[in-house]
């Protein structure tokens, strides 16, 4: 316990680093994933703008990268991170790899939620003379907004999980803190402190997501 108080400032720095990585990953990966998901949804056969080439290429790329375990994925894209960010380790490099991995996962979640929008309301919008881009923007996304928020909440929790893993391979944050000061130095109290704070983060994010989704869906 004394050791934990000694490391107090480092602990809070690690907590801040985790939040920083999660927030930026959500911002970058969330935006790219949203675009990819919408393109997947719109280009699928029978979609608003069917395009088999775009759909199949994207589908194969996402299916290729998505199942790769994240810890191996970080190692694999490290050269690319070095090329783009200028450095292969550290939080910014981690945000780069995290964002790529998260956008693939998010694109699937976005696609899955958009396909649940009733074909009937899309047909109604078409019958009113609306074009595909307008329908995506003013019908499909608003109709799927509640489930989309829940999907993003699910992903944020997964991103918190991924940042902890990033601590193992050159990133900072609570995962790294728990490993370096807790696990490797036989201080279970420190491991548990990091773990508990992660649980608090996850709970808070989940609560926020549920609350937002409920507000949007009005139930």
């Amino acid at each position, binding site marked *: 316990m004394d050791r934990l108080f000694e490391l107090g400032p480092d602990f809070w720095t690690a907590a801040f680093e985790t939040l920083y990585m999660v927030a930026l990953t959500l911002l970058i990966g969330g935006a790219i994933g949203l675009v990819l998901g919408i393109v997947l949804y719109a280009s699928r056969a029978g979609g608003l703008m069917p395009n088999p080439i775009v759909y199949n290429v994207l589908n194969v790329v996402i299916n290729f990268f998505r199942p790769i375990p994240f810890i191996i994925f970080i190692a694999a894209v490290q050269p690319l991170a070095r090329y783009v960010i200028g450095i292969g380790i550290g939080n910014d490099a981690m945000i780069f790899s995290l964002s790529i991995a998260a956008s693939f996962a998010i694109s699937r979640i976005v696609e899955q939620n958009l396909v649940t929008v009733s074909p*009937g*309301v899309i047909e*109604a919008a078409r*019958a009113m*003379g609306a074009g595909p881009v307008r329908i995506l923007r003013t019908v499909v996304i608003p109709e799927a907004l509640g489930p989309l928020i829940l999907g993003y909440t699910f992903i944020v929790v997964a991103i918190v999980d991924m940042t902890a893993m990033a601590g193992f391979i050159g990133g900072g944050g609570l995962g790294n803190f728990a490993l370096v000061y807790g696990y490797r130095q036989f201080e279970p109290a420190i491991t548990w402190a990091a773990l508990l704070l992660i649980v608090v983060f996850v709970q808070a994010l989940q609560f926020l997501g549920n609350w937002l989704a409920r507000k949007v869906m009005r139930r």
Partner: protein
Amino acid sequence: MALVALKNVTKAYPPQGRDGAEIVAVDDVTLDIEPGDVYGIIGYSGAGKSTLLRLVNALEPATAGSIEIDGREIVGLPERELRGIRLGIGMIFQQFNLFGAKTVAGNIAYPLKVAGWSKAEIEPRVAELLEFVGLAEKAKAFPDQLSGGQKQRVGIARALATSPRLLLADEATSALDPDTTQEVLELLKRVNREFGVTIIVITHEMDVIQSIATKVAVMDGGRVIENGEVFDVFSRPRNASSQRFVATVVKGVPSPAELAVLRERHEGRIVTISFRDSDASQAQVFVELANAGLDFELVYGGINDIQGRAFGHLTLAIRGADASIDSVLASIASRAEVTEAR
């Protein structure tokens, strides 16, 4: 000039799988819909009526033939131009298809936004439409807070927002209970009468046709097998499929099974007399039977009213001397259709 003129219109879907055959949903349909008509299209599910309706506003492209809307050919037009055509055609649906994330007012405003109206123009128009369908107090409600009938009224207001000349109704009352169905049909009648909107109604319910349509087409297997004035089709259906539909609302000639029951319960000769409005009036027939001293009773049938014209089939059990029955029936037969069950 017809508002909608369909000439030899066909819609075929490409074969599914390698050995599949082409699916012809609409097969060589020719139909003229005049301004002001309430045109009913009836048929069993799978008859192609929903597809036919979607060809009219080009939600589905026709594979062959010509479709003219107000004199303008729409087959082969690029999607961008079709959007402009669709702005002038309203559509309502069986499942209402309201936008769940938008309020009632937001739903009605949507087509106006698509049409490029300004906010200042949209607001009074939405209020006017809500007033017309009697939902002024529901402007801020969401669709899931409305009953089925209210949802369809919002659907109608939304479809009429841009003041289209043509309204397409796709099984618009099939998801509603009988009372609500009548309420929605009354509203559609008002739309036709007050705004002069031409309406095409797709349905599998003959009583919907009976209560609002002026003309009707019967579809079967993608083809229109019979069409014309509702009165003519109802009072003298030529086709077996039309006869089955008519029988769902018009109690006509008893079936062999019903005839057997009638014979058991009633003595005398069973005779069906079919009336159409210009034919002999019922009163004359009854007077003739009474004057001949015959004893008779009404055992089956009914008289229907379609847009103020009456028709129907009455089955009588007549008792008396065979010779006098024959002579009276011969006299009636010169003015109304008489069929005697043997």
